[in-house]
């Protein structure tokens, strides 16, 4: 299999990082607004934010792992 095709496919896999980064930025913005509205709940908001960020980051990780597997086993 041509390495050019594999490279293009792996690069297209990593486009999911765009959406993941956008979503995580929006979530952090809302969390900062919530803490500004009620600073006593900052501990709970932080733990919920971290949980949500790690779950959202996993879509970017799926793209990364798929690109890695493509680069290493198809050429």
């Amino acid at each position, binding site marked *: 299999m041509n390495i050019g095709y594999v490279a293009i496919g792996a690069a297209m896999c990593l486009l999911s990082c765009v959406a993941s980064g956008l979503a995580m930025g929006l979530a952090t913005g809302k969390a900062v607004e919530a803490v500004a509205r009620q600073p006593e709940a900052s501990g709970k908001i932080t733990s919920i934010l971290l*949980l949500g960020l*790690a779950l959202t980051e*996993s879509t970017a*990780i*799926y793209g*990364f792992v798929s690109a*890695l597997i493509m680069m*290493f*086993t198809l050429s």
Partner: protein
Amino acid sequence: MVTNWIGLGAGLIASISALFWRRAESKRLAAIKTPTKKQARPKKMATALIILGIWVFLSEGISLIFGASDKGEFTVELFAPRVSLFGLSISSTVLVTWIAMLALLIVALILRLTVIPHLRDIPSGAQNVLEIMVGGISDYTEATSGGGLGDNLNAYFFSVAALMIASAMVELFGVRAPTADITMTFSLALITFVLINYYGIRRKGLKGRIKSLAEPTPVVFPMRIVSDVAVPVSLACRLFGNMLGGMIVMDLLYSSLGNFGIAIPSVAGLYFNVFHPLIQVFIFITLSLTFIREAAELTEE
């Protein structure tokens, strides 16, 4: 060669002169009562120059002693290299996991023999730390999994957390972390899958568990099965991807800095090798408990 000696000399001169400068600045600042930020700035600059001088001195010294670093090709392996042990070919992940397990066992033995026989009502020292760790995970497991599932779940998740943290600590010694191998993370996720089904069947019976997969309408039955299979796959991929990404970034940092990689990689390593694994352990445990709670929950009473 000559530039190395020049750098050595420059670093030495810079750090020694900055030492004298800092001493003079401290004497001048001690005379003022409350120094403003602008007055305290020369002392900070002197401290920075000392550190920079020592860094340049050590790096050039290493270049002189060991020769220039050869910047060859940068390769990363997807699967861990295999070693041969007593005629069998084992992945190095398994070997490093055994070493981590041995270290954990030795720590547990030491704690069992020295701390447990002298338990007191008012804890102090090592007993305090133990109580904080065990109590913290126990309360968190009870709260997230809805309670009533027994104490063995707390003990299992404590062991999993200890194993994952020990695997991450191994990376500080330059060895490839065991959790950066998809076979190990998939094994852990498979145990979670077995636990989810075990608690679901124990609460609802086998027929109840299958019926709960057809919860709103029986049409969604195939989709529920696929999403149930996707749970351990996503757990495994998340842990594997995060650990492998951290390892790739640290390897890139080390190989690009070459002989100058003295203090900078340790600062970056603090984030990638200590903070990242802790967050991933927390996420793994939280997600496993959430899925177990969802499977073992009775909705009609």
